[in-house]
Structure formats: C-alpha cells, structure tokens
C-alpha cells in the first residue's frame, strides 16, 4: 500500500490552509508579482545585476571524492555554482497572517531543496545558496503565503508580530521597512536589515479581512477561527501530549 501523507489534522479552514501550504502537489495561488530585481533589493545581500559572490569553486571544477551519495543527490543550482549562503527572514503577525513560523518551516521543507530553516516564536529564517534563495523568496512573496501588511521581511529587529496593528492595519515595525502609501500599495523603503533603499519597492496591496480570514494558518479566537472550534485538532494535540507525558511509563493506546 502506497503511503499517502496527511500533512496535518483538523477540520477547520485553518487546518485546511496548513495542509494546502505543506502539500507540494498543491500549487499555491499567485497573488501578486514582484520582479527579480525588487527581491534582490529587499534581501539586500548584493547589488542587483552584480555577479553572485562565491564561497567555493563550482562543483564541476572541483575534484569530488568518489561517493555514492554525491551521485545520488543532484546539487541545486546555487550549490553547483558555489554560491555563498544567504537568508531571508519573515515575521508574521498573529492577526490572521497567511503563514506563521512553524508552518513556514514545514512548508519549505516539503517544497524547497537545500535549505536550512530556523524557527522562532515570531519569526522564521531560511538559509540557502544565494541564487536558490532568490528563487524561493519569489515564491514566498508572490503567493498566498504573503500579505504586505501582516507579513514583514525582517532580517533584524523583528518584534511586532504579537503587537496590536497600527491604525492603517500595518504590523508594527520599529524600523518602518515598509510603508502603506496613499495609493493603498505597500512599499519597502528599506531592505530587510533596515538600510534605506535607493528606490521604493512595491509589494502590492494589503489583502482584505475576508481574504485573510479565509487564508490564514493561525488560530485566533478574537479575529479568526478559534482553536477550540477545531475538535479534531484539539484531540490530536491532546493525544500527542498525553503520549509524551506517559512516555517511559509504558503508554498504551486503547
């Protein structure tokens, strides 16, 4: 019998969205388009148009040892070219942001290759070879995993995810990397670590409340779907909790 991954429990719309993001066979809806140059500007690792700095010579020029694993695993484009390892970090608001740190890591592990994610309570960083990073970042920004107001691309000073939103609906950012313009479009005026950009980078309009509520992967009893409303999810977590607690005392499931 072929194994069919389930990705996660739950009957609520939040659980459904989590499964959708994690399942690599499901194409994520493209919501906006951002050019490659704009992504390079937001990331702030190199000047747009410049060559990729390298950490080691391309694999083709190297004398690789005879290793069955190396034959089995095909290197990613960045690894093949010897790019340096760079990162992108996201902070997700708790008020119905479309993704959240743990979810991001699960999703990236299912969808991307050659990555090293780091997960914290309010932010999630993913490291990989530079040209792979730009490709993955484009996916993460252009699809339904991103909302210009409630998701911040923040390399440093990330707090704000658990704070109240500002009057205009933007997540608090001490460094104000992105601003909501008069035209309703969010523009990045600083790169992810807070250095001012030469030109503003538009990342589109914030999504409306209805869309956010339908696409979020965060339970929130006040503004979204309450966790306790998803009985299957609660039952699953309780089971894991009780098995972990009883571990070592010969747990037996009925």
């Amino acid at each position, binding site marked *: 019998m072929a194994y069919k991954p389930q990705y996660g429990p739950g009957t609520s719309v939040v659980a459904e969205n989590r499964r959708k993001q994690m399942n690599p066979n499901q194409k994520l809806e493209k919501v906006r388009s951002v050019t490659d140059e704009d992504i390079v500007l937001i990331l702030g690792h190199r000047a747009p148009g410049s060559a990729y700095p390298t950490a080691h010579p391309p694999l083709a020029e190297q004398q690789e040892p005879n290793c069955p694993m190396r034959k089995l695993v095909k290197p990613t484009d960045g690894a093949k070219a010897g790019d340096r390892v760079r990162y992108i970090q996201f902070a997700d608001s708790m008020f119905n942001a479309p993704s959240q740190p743990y979810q991001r890591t699960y999703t990236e592990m299912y969808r991307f290759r050659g990555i090293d994610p780091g997960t914290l309570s309010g932010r999630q960083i993913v490291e990989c070879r530079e040209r792979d990073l730009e490709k993955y970042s484009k996916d993460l920004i252009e699809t339904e995993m991103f909302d210009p107001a409630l998701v911040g691309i923040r390399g440093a000073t990330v707090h704000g995810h658990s704070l109240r939103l*500002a009057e205009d609906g933007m997540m608090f950012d*001490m460094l*104000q990397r992105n601003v909501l313009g008069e035209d309703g479009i969010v523009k990045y005026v600083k790169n992810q670590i807070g250095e001012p950009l030469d030109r503003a980078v538009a990342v589109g309009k914030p999504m409306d409340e209805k869309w956010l509520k339908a696409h979020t992967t965060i339970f929130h009893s006040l503004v979204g779907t309450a966790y306790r409303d998803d009985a299957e999810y609660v039952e699953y977590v309780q089971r894991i909790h009780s098995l972990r607690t009883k571990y070592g005392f010969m747990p037996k499931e009925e």
Partner: protein
Amino acid sequence: MTNAEFPQVRIVPIRMLKPATAERLLNMLAGTAGIRRMMIHGPGLPKTVPYGPARGSPNPHSDRKAIRIADAEIALRVQVGTVILEVEDASVIEEIRSLCDDFFVEFPYLLQEGKFMKTSPTLVDYAKYGPDADTSLVGLTDPRNRESPVILRTEQ
C-alpha cells in the same frame, strides 16, 4: 509619586495610534479638567538602528515626530499604544469615558481602571532624583532617560 487616593485609568485602543490621532486624543484629554498626570506608552521608535547588521545607521520613521498638545510640543519617541491617566476623582473617569466613546469610532478601545504608575520610588529613581525628589515626577518618565516630563498649561 502616585497617591492611593487618586484613581488611575488606562485607555487602550485596539489599534496603535498614528501621531495625528494621538495628537487629537491628547488634546481632547488636555482640555478635560481633573487630570493630574498623563503618560503615553507604546513600543519605541529609536533614532538609530539599535542592533543587527545595520546597527548605528539612521532610522527614518514617519511616526517619530513632534506633536503639539495644548501649549507644549512633545517629541514622540514611541508609537502610542496606551495612555495612562491619573485623575482627581471618579467623576472625571466618567467624563473621560464619554469623551473616548465619541472619539473612537473607527476601532474600539478599552478603558481600564487600576494602578498603572509606580507606587514608590525605586533605587534608580533615588539615584536620579535624590532623597528630596519631587514626588509628582516619580513614575512619569523613564529615570534612565534624560528627558523630563512636559507640563501642560491649559485654560481651564
């Protein structure tokens, strides 16, 4: 220093205020008789990037600007999240409540009663103000900050 006989309230809007809205709210409160002390509270907006790779570089932020309350100018250093007030008596609280009910129409707010200011001077207060400190200053500003409180003079 706070006195137990003076009630305190805290205005907590559900959204953090922009400088213009904060200016309107504070001016409205400044026109109310019976408020002894007022404090604004919220996450800080530093002038330079405090940490990370861009540490030390300037941090232009559109919400860090000076607002005018009554006859005084206040340089905002925070995004206004809550306003803490110490009032003369309970009747002032009801007045504040009715003013705020009219003010917050776009989004809701909470008016909480309790103790929100320091009740006795700390060691840092002692180091800053000495043994003969003006008790009305204690608890109003961050003792480590060089700025002193602003005194509003309103025609009442």
